[in-house]
């Protein structure tokens, strides 16, 4: 009998239901923690928003003061026999509550920019997406083939990889000023930063993954008469594709992390611009809303890519993927042994 009641099981998958529950919890727990800190006064709330300043000459209604200061001022007021202040304990402005961020999230998309001529929020987001896309796309167009070549031919590996290995230790941001000088202040240097940040890793990662191909498959193909080009396109690439695809998903995540650096190169644009702007207005709920949008885009894209991958590479699990069921008839055979 399998012991299904245990939650902690070494190297075993939990039942599907529990796995879903845990996935939900992984988002729900931080959210609950955030809500608790925001809505239960005793946990943190280190500041006081003044409702009635009383006779205080230093503070006005709506001011937010540190709770020690609030207490001190009230003691002074009481000593003078004056009317003292009342207020409500709150969290600092840089720690908005969930509902505030949710509201900001909606408002960010719905509300026009504060100044005429400034981009709408969604325009900033799209601008960011565009920069990441081009940086990642250009990097992949060069990096993927180069990496695969390095993985297959020692010639390219030895010629290219040592330098790439060296170059990847330069943090991409150090090329910011250079990129602007060469490419101007528009999007080109931003795309370049993302390119630099992604490309060198990409070559190495692709090369390594390609090298891990089960060489027995290559030899089997050779004994079937396959020549190098066939081996490359019909064996090595399809065999490493699932892992290459996974690598690409991870690299895309890295490209996103370079975005924030890239966007402040030259003229600040995109989500970074929005975030900086909102921080200046001390509208931190908007800042969080923008950060969340980045998270949603990242997680969303990755989830879609993962689903596509599961279907494309269903053969790994001995299943038919959605894409192959589209093109072929299904034969419902269960193998005997």
């Amino acid at each position, binding site marked *: 009998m399998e012991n299904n009641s245990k939650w902690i099981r070494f190297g075993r998958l939990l039942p599907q239901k529990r796995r879903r529950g845990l996935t939900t919890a992984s988002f729900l727990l931080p959210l609950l923690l955030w809500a608790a800190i925001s809505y239960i006064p005793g946990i943190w709330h280190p500041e006081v928003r003044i409702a009635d300043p009383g006779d205080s000459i230093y503070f006005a209604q709506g001011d937010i003061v540190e709770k020690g200061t609030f207490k001190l001022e009230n003691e002074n007021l009481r000593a003078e026999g004056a009317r003292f202040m009342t207020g409500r304990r709150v969290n600092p402005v840089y720690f908005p509550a969930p509902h505030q961020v949710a509201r900001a999230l909606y408002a960010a998309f719905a509300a026009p920019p504060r100044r005429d001529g400034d981009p709408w929020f969604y325009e900033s987001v799209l601008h960011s997406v565009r920069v990441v896309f081009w940086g990642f796309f250009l990097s992949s167009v060069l990096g993927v083939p180069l990496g695969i070549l390095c993985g297959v031919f020692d010639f390219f590996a030895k010629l290219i990889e040592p330098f790439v290995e060296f170059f990847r230790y330069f943090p991409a941001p150090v090329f910011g000023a250079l990129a602007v000088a060469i490419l101007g202040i528009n999007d080109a240097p931003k795309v370049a930063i993302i390119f630099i940040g992604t490309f060198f890793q990409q070559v190495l990662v692709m090369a390594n993954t390609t090298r891990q191909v089960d060489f*027995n*498959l290559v*030899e*089997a*193909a*050779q*004994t*079937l*008469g*396959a*020549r190098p080009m*066939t081996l490359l396109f*019909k*064996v090595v690439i*399809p*065999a490493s*594709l699932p892992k290459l695809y996974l690598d690409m998903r991870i690299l895309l995540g890295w490209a996103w992390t370079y975005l924030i650096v890239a966007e402040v190169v030259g003229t600040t644009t995109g989500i970074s611009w929005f975030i900086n702007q909102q921080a200046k207005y001390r509208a931190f709920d908007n800042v969080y809303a923008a950060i969340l949008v980045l998270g949603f885009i990242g997680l969303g894209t990755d989830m879609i890519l993962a689903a596509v991958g599961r279907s494309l*590479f269903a*053969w*790994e*699990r*001995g*299943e*038919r993927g959605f894409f192959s069921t589209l093109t*072929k*008839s*299904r*034969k419902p*055979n269960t*193998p*005997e*042994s």
Partner: protein
Amino acid sequence: MDIHSKLNLPNYRQQSAEVTAALDQLKKQPVALEIANLTKEFPSDAGPRRVLNDVSFKVYQREFLSIIGPSGCGKSTLIRLLACLEESTDGLILLNKYPVRETGADRGMVFQKYTLFPWLTVKKNVMFGLEVSGRGKFDAEIEARQWLDIVGLEEYADLYPAQLSGGMQQRVAIARALANKPQVLLMDEPFGALDAQTRAKMQAYLLQIWEKIDITIIFITHDLDEAVYLSDRILVLKANPGEVQELVEVPVPRSRTPEQFLSPEFLATKFHLEELIHPGHIRSADDFKVVKMVGEKDK
């Protein structure tokens, strides 16, 4: 009294007229593969290590030749040299009198490890070699289906390798190799990873196929029963360095059936092979496990 006479086995060199005639017939066939003075050294820290030394033998067309020998004696190295998956240090390999230099579809191979392409369906796996050689998709598919029919897996054509059992995967691998119409089929312990029952089935399959089509088979195994059951002749290698010890002619008449496992000439051959590979290993009838099976059957 030595154990051989105690077991009351004939000399393995004694052949019935039928077997002699069949072997003479075989040796009149053109030579499919000639291996001449083949030597292979692998580099090592202590200088080159000679794994195969001056190996020479001939394989005739339509012959079923097994290669046996102690573990590490260079059987896999030898067969990989024949496929040109390794380069020889010295010596010649002639296929139909022409030296071979590169891997090619004329020498198909079935490996002990499962090497079906997991991203291709069974049918597409079998079509792989055909398409590589420039056959059109349509033709290739028809042929692939015929080969799958021969190995009895036609209805699994559209499944992926991960959906098949090990034995079925090896049958597909055999179909894939044969679909290419190689002149020689090289098999390196193809059934080594299978359980005894599946293995016996696979041996029967292989014999059936071999009888059906025009192919020369070189078959590595460490299972002596398997070697005797399948082969016309058995090349015995000795280790360090790998050299030809003896080329044994199997005195068991064809066509073979599992009952022959217990025939005197079968046991005599097996006994001889056992003595070649593990000299002095058989000290009592108990060490010779098939004899026990005879006893059990008598009960």
